[in-house]
């Protein structure tokens, strides 16, 4: 995709200062390209370090290939960059360690995250991968809010949690995967028990 045809994240033009700003180009794993302001990139620790390390000039940004983000699709990346543009220049919050965490979801973020759970899931993965602290906070808060007023049985369905039996079975399976002989030993033991043997040996 050429730079001219790249979908640009909606930016409030009036809000852009007159001085020339650098816009980096990123490409999702489904080859969608995005132009993102330098200030917006600062919300992502991962991307910020990446562009710093690359040391691109304004010309490099235009002439070199877009920076590929291999494991995030275009739909998710668009949300990520919309969020970064809206929150550019804002301080990155520092975790004060308090639990339960108090996180307010701003109106813009709430609208942005008015998406299906599949996309929300991808958005959280992207926020985690790109290390966007506040986006991770608000998106995780949205997931936490799903638990409000739910009983344990309802939570199992909301979060697709395994039942006690499934949880135990998964643990056993994991143990067996580590020690394939365990199942054989157990079966052998059961067989000997059926045959009435008193001792394993």
């Amino acid at each position, binding site marked *: 995709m050429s730079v001219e045809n790249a979908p640009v994240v909606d930016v409030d033009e009036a809000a852009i200062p007159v001085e020339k700003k650098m816009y980096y180009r990123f490409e999702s794993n489904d080859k969608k390209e995005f132009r993102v302001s330098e200030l917006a990139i600062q919300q992502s620790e991962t991307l910020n370090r990446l562009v710093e390390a690359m040391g691109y000039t304004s010309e490099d940004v235009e002439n070199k290939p877009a920076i590929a983000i291999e494991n995030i699709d275009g739909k998710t990346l668009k949300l990520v960059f919309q969020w970064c543009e809206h929150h550019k220049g804002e301080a990155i919050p520092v975790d004060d360690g*308090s*639990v*339960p965490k108090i996180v307010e979801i701003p109106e813009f973020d709430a609208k942005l995250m008015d998406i299906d759970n599949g996309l929300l899931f991808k958005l959280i*993965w992207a926020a985690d991968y790109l290390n966007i602290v506040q986006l991770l906070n608000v998106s995780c*808060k949205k997931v*936490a809010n799903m638990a409000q007023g739910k009983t344990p049985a309802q939570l199992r369905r*909301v979060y*697709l*949690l395994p039942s006690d039996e499934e949880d135990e079975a998964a643990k056993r399976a994991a143990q067996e995967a580590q020690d394939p002989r365990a199942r054989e030993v157990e079966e052998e033991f059961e067989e000997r028990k059926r045959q009435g043997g008193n001792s394993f040996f």
Partner: protein
Amino acid sequence: MKTLLESYNFEDEVFEAFRLMNLPYLALEQVIKSMSLMEAFNLSICSPTLQHFVKYFFKNQQIKLQVHIYDGIQFRLESPNGSFISIKARDCLEDLDGCMRMKIGNASKIPFYYCDPDQNHVVTCWRDVVKGAIELNSLILDLFNIHFEKLHVWKEKINYDYGSVVGWINRMNKPIENVYFAKGTVDDTLYSQIINSENFQKCRIHQNPSENFQSQEFRFTDAHVNWQVFNAHWITLENLSDIGSACLKLYDIKFTDQEMSTFLRTLITGKFPNLEMIELRLNRRDLNLPLIMDGIVDRENVVMNWDVRVFDRFGYNTSVRGTIDVQMDTGETCSIKLYASAVYVFIWK
């Protein structure tokens, strides 16, 4: 294509399940840490794995626990940011049809219901209330970093076996900051178990043992930091021969004038190094003040101290004036305030 499990009708709204356990670790941590105590508690009983996560993510935050024992046993948990939940164990309701159920500790299908719109108060129903409380208590203590702030017991409202309650309280073996036993007549054996508990730092006991109750071996140890015993008619001079407490208020004691004098003379020797305040209220109003102060002060030259001093320790804020000040053998000063029915002593540290 979504499976039936992944998409379902939930109170007339179609929800798409969120694969919580597939989130990266850091995100899962953020989700659980953003939950209120009730949500985290409910999540923890969904699976042993989640119980482990909740426990791990909440371990650095001290949660205050209050236990109220009356017609049921209520656990009130409060986080430092003020959010709270209450979980109560009560006896089984007759009609449990349609009641929601959950697994709690080792008990399965325990009926429960919420009793407020915010769902901060959950009531669980048990055939044996104390066993239910034991399950809840061990779950809560395992899950959260608990500071046991309060234990309040209303004996007269308890309609289940009080012996089991006392046994459980004693087995808790966890220091409790503030304990209150409301009035009510109790079996002497149970009363004895309560007063001998070394887990109650600050304790008010209004309960009433029998008139004949005695406990010759009982002493206020340094575990009995700040105690008030109403109905203390059973306390003897022997019981006060050694005191590890800092503050004691004993009501309705049956000391003779001679016993009171002996106690005060022992006190001024500095035998009770932790003691800062003691209030002894008698069951009569005819204390012979000159007699009880005999040998402690020179009766001909008693000087009253009318300066106002404030005893501001262990939660008290008492103005002290009109006292007889006595130099103790330790060099400390104690102020003795005498009434016809009570003696107060403040030891200034």
